[in-house]
C-alpha cells in the first residue's frame, strides 16, 4: 500500500514536468556554488552577490514573511474580517500575489507541493487541534462523530463517484478519458471535510459547542477513511479493473480498520510517551516544550511511515497528553507550549491559504470542462446535505439529546473542502490518470467555492437561522459543583436502574484513569492539586483576600489593630452564619516574627470573630496616612492581580484563553510579599538594609507604616499559604 510520501518523491526526482519548488535544496544548486568557486576569477572580489547560495532558504523565509504580511494587512480592518472570514481573504490575497508573480514571470519560484503541505504545514495545525480539543465533549459525542466521519465520508465518496460516472456515461461531460475507478478515486479525495477550513470558518462564528464538535470532530476523524479510500482506489486503478475481486475488496475493508485504529493507537502511545517524559523533565524545564513538538511530529511521521493515518495519530497524541503535560510541566512551559502551538498553527494556516490562492496560476491545470466541474460542485453540495440529514435521522433515534434541524443545516453547510483535498489531488499519478490536471483544477475550484462562498455566507446564515451560540459566561463555583453533583447523580441512577449507560462508562474510565494512569504519568505534586473544584476555590480565596484588602483600603486607609477581640466587618457583610466560614482564610499564624513584636495572634473558628482589622496608633498614622494610603493602594494594585475569569472552552485560532494558571497569581503575590518582608526584616534587624530604605527619621515613619502594612499583607499571605497547605496536607502527605 502506498503512502503519501513515496508518490511525490518519485515524481519530484525523476520527472521534472511540473515546475519544482525551489523550497527543497537540490544537488544542482550545490554543484553550482562549487562551480562558481572553481571558475577563474580575475581579482579578489570584495563583495559578491551569491544568490544561488541562499536561494532556497531565502525563498522559504520570504514566503513565510509574505504570508505573515498578508495576514497583517487583512487583520488591520476588523470590519472586513467580521463579514468575510480570514481564510477567504487570504485566498484572495493569494490570487493577487499569484497575479503579481505571473506578471513578473517567476512562476518557477513557487509551488505548493504535497510534500511541503503534508510534512511541513499540516502537522502543526492538527497537533494544535488535538492539544486544544475539549476531551470530555469529544468523547461524549464520539459515536455520532464516528458515524459522520466514516459512513458520511464513504457515502460522499461513493455517491459522487457514481453520479459523475453516470453523467459521464450519459454524455454530459464530453470526451473524457476517465473510468469508473478513477471517478471513485476522485470522489474519495474530494469527499473529505477539511479540518483547516472548518476551524478557519467556525472560529469566527461561535456556534454551540455540540455542533462545533460534530463538524470539527468529523473533519479530523475522516482522515482515516480518506487515506484508506484513496490508497485503495489508487491501487485498484493501478491494478486495472480486471484484477479486482472479492479478496481485494475485503483487504480494502480490513485496511480501513488497521489504518484507523493503528493510527489512533500509535498516537495514543506517543501521547503517553510525552506525558512520561514531562514527568521527568524537572531539571531541564527550558527545553521541555521542545519535546512535545518533536514527539508530536514524530507520531505524525511514524504513522506516515507505517502507512497508517497520520492525522489520527497526531490528533490522538495531542488529546492524550494534554491533561498530563498541563499538570506536570512548569507554568511557563505550559504557556510556551500553548503559545508556540498557536503561532505555528496560525502561521501554517495562513501560508496554506495564501498558497492555495497562488496555486491558481499554474497554467498546466487550466483545463476546463463545464460538465465535470459544475456537476462536481452540485453533487458535492447536494450529497452532503442528503448524507447529513439521513445520518442524523438515524442517530437521533439513539441520541439522548437529538440534533435539531437547524443544527443539521449548519452541519451540511459546514462541510468545507480544503487544502487536504488539493494535496491529495496533486499526488495523483498522471501516468495512470490522464485527466489529472482536470481533477486538480476541479479540486481547486471546489476548495475556492466552499471556503470563500460558504465561508462568507456562514455567519449570516447562522444569524438568520438563529442557531444556538456558545455560552461565554464565567462559570461560578456553585455551577461547577452542581455539575459534579449531577454527574454523580446520573451515574447513581444508572447503577440503580441497572442500565449500562454512557455515564457509567465515563465513571469507570475516570476511576481507572485516576487509579492507574495518573499515578504513572503525573508528578505526585501535580496529582494533589489537580482537583478542579479545589483550584477554583483557591482562586476564590485569593480573590477574597484581595477584595478584602481593597475594601479595607477603601474604608479610609489600612487600619491595623493589634486587638484580638474586635469584631470582623465580615459579619455585617455576609451574615452571622457565614462569618464562621471566613476564619478558614485567617488561620492561626504562629509567632515567627516574635522578635519584631508585631505578630498578631488570631483565634480560629471557635471564637466568634478573628481580629482582622489591624490598627496602628493614630498619632503615627495621621499625617502620613493619606500619602501612604495611595502608595499602598498602588502597590497592591500593581503587584496583585485581579481575579481571573474562567472562560468556557471556546476554540479559537488567534484569541485563545486568557485564563492563566492561578498558581501564577499565588506565586507572584508570594514573591512580592517575600521581597518586601525581606527588606523590612533586614531594616528592623539592623542588617545592611537594601538601598531604598534609609535611616532618615522621616522615612522611619514610613517604615513603620510599611511595617504594619507588611504585617497585614504578610498575614494574608500566611493565611492563604496556610489554608492552601492545610488543604494540601489534608490530602494526606
Amino acid at each position, binding site marked *: 500500500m502506498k503512502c503519501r510520501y513515496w508518490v511525490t518523491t518519485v515524481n519530484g526526482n525523476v520527472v521534472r514536468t511540473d515546475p519544482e519548488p525551489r523550497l527543497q535544496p537540490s544537488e544542482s544548486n550545490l554543484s553550482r556554488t562549487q562551480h562558481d568557486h572553481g571558475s577563474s576569477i580575475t581579482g579578489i572580489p570584495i563583495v559578491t552577490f551569491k544568490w544561488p547560495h541562499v536561494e532556497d532558504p531565502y525563498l522559504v523565509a520570504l514566503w513565510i514573511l509574505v504570508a505573515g504580511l498578508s495576514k497583517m494587512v487583512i487583520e488591520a480592518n476588523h470590519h472586513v474580517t467580521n463579514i468575510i472570514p480570514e481564510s477567504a481573504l487570504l485566498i484572495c490575497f493569494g490570487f493577487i500575489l499569484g497575479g503579481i508573480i505571473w506578471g513578473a514571470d517567476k512562476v518557477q519560484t513557487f509551488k505548493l507541493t504535497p510534500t511541503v503541505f503534508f510534512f511541513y504545514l499540516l502537522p502543526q495545525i492538527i497537533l494544535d487541534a488535538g492539544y486544544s480539543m475539549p476531551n470530555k465533549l469529544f468523547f461524549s459525542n464520539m459515536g455520532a462523530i464516528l458515524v459522520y466521519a466514516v459512513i458520511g465520508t464513504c457515502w460522499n465518496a461513493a455517491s459522487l463517484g457514481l453520479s459523475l460516472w453516470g453523467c459521464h456515461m450519459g454524455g454530459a461531460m464530453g470526451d473524457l478519458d476517465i473510468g469508473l475507478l478513477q471517478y471513485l478515486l476522485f470522489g474519495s479525495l474530494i469527499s473529505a471535510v477539511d479540518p483547516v477550513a472548518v476551524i478557519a470558518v467556525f472560529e469566527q462564528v461561535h456556534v454551540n459547542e455540540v455542533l462545533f464538535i460534530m463538524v470539527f470532530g468529523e473533519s479530523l476523524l475522516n482522515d482515516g477513511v480518506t487515506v484508506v479510500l484513496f490508497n485503495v482506489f489508487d491501487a485498484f486503478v493501478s491494478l486495472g479493473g480486471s484484477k479486482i475481486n472479492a479478496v481485494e475488496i475485503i483487504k480494502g475493508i480490513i485496511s480501513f480498520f488497521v489504518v484507523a485504529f493503528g493510527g489512533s493507537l500509535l498516537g495514543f502511545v506517543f501521547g503517553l510517551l510525552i506525558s512520561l517524559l514531562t514527568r521527568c523533565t524537572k531539571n531541564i524545564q527550558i527545553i521541555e516544550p521542545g519535546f512535545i513538538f518533536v514527539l508530536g511530529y514524530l507520531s505524525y511521521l511514524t504513522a506516515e511511515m507505517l502507512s497508517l493515518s497520520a492525522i489520527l495519530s497526531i490528533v490522538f497524541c495531542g488529546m492524550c497528553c494534554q491533561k498530563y503535560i498541563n499538570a506536570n510541566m512548569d507554568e511557563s512551559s505550559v504557556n510556551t507550549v500553548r503559545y508556540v502551538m498557536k503561532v505555528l498553527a496560525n502561521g501554517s494556516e495562513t501560508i496554506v491559504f495564501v498558497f492555495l490562492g497562488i496555486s491558481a496560476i499554474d497554467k498546466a491545470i487550466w483545463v476546463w470542462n463545464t460538465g465535470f466541474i459544475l456537476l462536481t460542485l452540485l453533487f458535492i453540495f447536494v450529497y452532503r446535505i442528503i448524507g447529513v440529514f439521513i445520518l442524523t435521522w438515524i442517530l*437521533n433515534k439513539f441520541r*439522548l*439529546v*437529538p440534533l435539531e434541524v437547524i443544527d443539521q443545516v449548519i452541519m451540511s453547510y459546514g462541510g468545507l473542502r480544503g487544502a487536504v483535498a488539493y494535496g491529495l489531488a496533486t499526488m495523483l499519478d498522471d501516468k495512470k490518470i490522464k485527466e489529472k490536471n482536470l481533477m486538480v483544477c476541479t479540486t481547486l475550484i471546489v476548495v475556492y467555492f466552499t471556503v470563500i462562498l460558504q465561508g462568507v455566507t456562514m455567519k449570516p446564515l447562522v444569524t438568520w437561522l438563529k442557531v444556538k451560540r456558545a*455560552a461565554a*459566561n464565567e*462559570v*461560578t*463555583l*456553585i*455551577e461547577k*459543583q*452542581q*455539575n*459534579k*453533583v*449531577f454527574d*454523580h*447523580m*446520573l*451515574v*447513581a*441512577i*444508572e*447503577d*440503580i*436502574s*441497572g*442500565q*449500562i*449507560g*454512557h*455515564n*457509567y462508562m465515563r465513571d469507570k474510565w475516570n*476511576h481507572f484513569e485516576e487509579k492507574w494512569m495518573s499515578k504513572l504519568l503525573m508528578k505526585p505534586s501535580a496529582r*494533589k492539586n489537580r*482537583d478542579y*473544584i*479545589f483550584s477554583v*476555590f483557591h482562586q*476564590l*480565596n485569593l480573590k*477574597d483576600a484581595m477584595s478584602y484588602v481593597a475594601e479595607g483600603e477603601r474604608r479610609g486607609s489600612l487600619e491595623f489593630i493589634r486587638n484580638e477581640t474586635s469584631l470582623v466587618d465580615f459579619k*455585617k*457583610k*455576609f*451574615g*452571622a*452564619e*457565614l462569618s*464562621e*466560614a471566613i476564619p*478558614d*482564610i485567617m488561620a492561626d499564624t504562629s509567632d515567627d516574627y516574635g522578635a519584631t513584636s508585631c505578630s498578631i495572634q488570631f483565634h480560629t473558628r471557635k471564637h466568634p470573630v478573628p481580629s482582622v482589622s489591624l490598627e496602628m496608633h493614630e498619632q503615627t498614622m495621621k499625617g502620613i496616612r493619606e500619602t501612604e494610603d495611595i502608595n499602598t493602594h498602588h502597590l497592591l494594585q500593581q503587584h496583585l492581580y485581579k481575579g481571573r475569569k474562567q472562560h468556557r472552552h471556546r476554540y479559537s485560532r488567534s484569541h485563545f484563553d486568557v485564563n492563566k494558571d492561578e498558581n501564577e497569581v499565588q506565586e507572584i503575590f508570594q514573591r512580592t510579599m517575600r521581597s518586601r518582608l525581606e527588606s523590612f526584616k533586614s531594616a528592623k534587624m539592623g542588617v545592611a538594609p537594601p538601598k531604598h530604605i534609609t535611616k532618615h527619621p522621616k522615612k522611619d515613619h514610613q517604615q513603620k507604616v510599611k511595617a504594619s502594612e507588611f504585617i497585614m499583607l504578610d498575614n494574608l499571605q500566611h493565611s492563604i499559604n496556610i*489554608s492552601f497547605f*492545610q*488543604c494540601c496536607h*489534608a*490530602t*494526606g502527605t
Partner: protein
Amino acid sequence: TATMGASQTRSEHKHQDLVDRTGFSLEQIKNLHKRFQQLSGNEETISKEHLDSIPALANNPIKKQIIEAFFDKRNQHQNEVGSFQEISFEQFLMVMSHFRPPTLKTTEEEREALRKEKLRFLFNMHDTDNDGTITLEEYRKVVEELLSKSGAIGLEAAKAIADAAMLEVASTNVPHMAPDDFYEGITFEHFEQILKGLEMESRMHIRFLDVDTSTMRCGKSTS
C-alpha cells in the same frame, strides 16, 4: 399456569396504567420492574438497605442523597412531605421518571414542565428540611459528601469550599447587602437561575433501554 397467566395480565394492566402516568414505554417498565424485583429480592417494596447494598453505588460520593431522594415524598408529586420507609414499584418509577429524556415529540409546555420537575428534584436533594430554601448548612452537607469522598480534599477544605460557593451566590444574588442583612439561603427561583447556564434539563437524562440488560451486568446484580 392459569394463575400465572392471570397474574401476568393483571400486572400488564398495572403497567399500562403506569405508562400513562410516568411516560415510560411498556418495554422500559417491564425492564425496570425486573430490576426492581432483583433489588428487592422479589418483594413488593424496597427499603433503603436494599439500595444501599448495590455494590456499584459504593464508590459514589452522593450515594446517601440519591437514596434519600428515592424515599422522599416530595418527589412523588402528591404534595406530601416527609419520607417513606419503603417504596413500591410505582413510587420507584415516579422517581425514575425524572430522568426520562424528552423525545422529539414533546411539546414546548411539556418541556417546560419537565424542566421544572427536574430542577425541583435537584432542589429537593439539597433542601432536606423542606423550608423552601437551601441554607448554608444544607449546602455544606452536600458539598462535604461530594468532595470528601474524592480523597483529594479534606473535610475542612470541603466546608470552606461550600462556604465560598454560598458567598459567591450571596454576593450575586444580593449584591449590596445592608449591614444587618442576613442571607437566608438559595430559593428555588434563584436556584433555577443559577443553573440556567448549565442547561440541566437537557443533560438530566438516562437512557432507559428497551432491551433487558440485567443479564449483561455480570457481577453487578444484587442477588
